[in-house]
């Protein structure tokens, strides 16, 4: 890895490391790629809990 900071002197604490973040999970990677290709039959559904909170069973009456 090249020096991320470039200058006319040597810094006290070199910044050469990649950002320290946990590796991305398969689910995260797949989600990002899927969202980037949304269109037509390419649809993505978030895994978020969904509870019906409308009136009755949602069927039209009357």
């Amino acid at each position, binding site marked *: 890895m090249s020096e991320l900071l470039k200058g*006319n002197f040597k810094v006290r604490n070199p910044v050469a490391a990649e950002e320290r973040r946990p590796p991305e999970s398969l689910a995260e990677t797949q989600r990002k790629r899927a969202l980037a290709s949304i269109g037509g039959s390419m649809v993505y559904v978030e895994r978020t809990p969904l509870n019906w909170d409308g009136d009755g069973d949602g069927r039209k009456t009357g």
Partner: protein
Amino acid sequence: MAKILIVNPVIREEDVPKHIPYGLSLLASIAIAKGHLVQIYDANAWRKGFGVLEQAARADDWDVIAIGGLTTSYGFIKKAVHIFRECAPRAFVIAGGGFLSSMPLEIMGWIPHIDLGIIGEAFVTWPEVLAMLDRGERDFSKTQGVCWRGADGAPHLNEVRPNIKDLDVLPYPAWDLLPLEEVYFPKGSQLYFSEESYTAKRRIDINGSLGCGLICKFCWHLGTTGEMIVEPNEQGVNDVRFTYGRNIRWHSPKYIVGMVKELIRKYQVDFVSFIDENMMTMNAASRGLWLPELCELWIQEGLQPECRRKGVPHDENCRTGVHWSGTSHATLAKKPILDAMFKAGCSHLVYGIESFDPYILKHLGKGTTQKSNVEAVQTCLDSGVRPIPNIIIGFPDESFDSIRTTLTHMVTCGIHSKPHFATPYPGSEWYYTYKNSIIEQYGGELEQFILSLGDASSPTVSISRNFSAMDLLGLQQIMSKRDFRLLDQAEKHWKRTRREDVPLAVPQESFNIIPRKVNAPMEDVARAI
């Protein structure tokens, strides 16, 4: 001497980094020449995330951390400045560039950790501020071209700094402080605009001039063109005002060719992109001398590409010389100069065609007509240079008729385009005249509009009398597909269902715009930087 960290913010995150931070690296060069210790962290090139920016802020005991960029980098800058304050509390934070010059009082309010703003052209102000900090001075109330904070933290804007007279006193940018080999050459060299830029392996940006004589209502210059002055507003508070005044300046052909030769010597560049606002208006301002002299010297100094020397089509075997691209204007680009540019190695020229509708063009301040736009495309092609015509939709007077006219001529001229959306960027005339409509469309939150700004390929706010963002998105799609049937259908339905003529955006007069020529100051004599 000051220990300085300069940070280039991330911009156009959806694309690979293609453009070096020309202005920031120039300021780095000026600071180095004055004896300061300078480091650049090019966040836009590296794209490493804010964790690495934190490391950069902790890398040394910085006296100054400086950041600047276009308005579209505002979101990054805001977050970055917060990090600077957290990780380097002792550092004096300086901001500058377009994002600040267009609306200094608002920005200083929204980002309270900026200690000092540099407004407009920074070539003289920047080293002067650094020298003051070196001397331990913190009173900037008499310094031209800055927005400083009072004891209560409130921003105060000083008078504008005169533009420098002679651009050739500027050093070359500090290219060594940029990740050219690691990022820009391998990732950002190739451009799809022309065969020559498509085969570029070591492309770099250069700038030959500052300013543009035109007064396009969607465009902005932010003090680098002699169009910005500072005066007390209705509340008696100093604020920026943008005018039709111009201090247009260009580098001598000798300076430019010298810079390219240096780029070959140090980095073996094979393509340079002129990022000038509009090279053809510079040529007009020089009475037609600048570009012919540049082309002549380009060839004389051995920069003419091999294919042009031999008079053969360009291919990947063209190994010597430097191809280049630039910016042009429909009315000002004539065949003789285009021929000379092609001969010297010019591969493509970006034209702000914008529209082919006569009424829209008449009210744009661009000085072009439907005829000049059509002829410009053909004349450019005839010379061998490829035109890159920008198209915009969503102008205040945009209508189905104007869209149809533009699309018809796009097809005739062989233009494939997914048009930009007319966007009132801060600093432009339309930003100030439609500011109230913008604020209304963002529920009273102007900062949210600023955060939403990108490269105008997505709608942010509509300044069109007739069309909402939804309409414009559909029209953009129809134009990119060249689908006249859908356009006819959309118009029929739109006319049938539109109940009343309620304009979506309404222009208003603004303190910040003076629609006439009021020149900002320029130094009388050239002085060394």
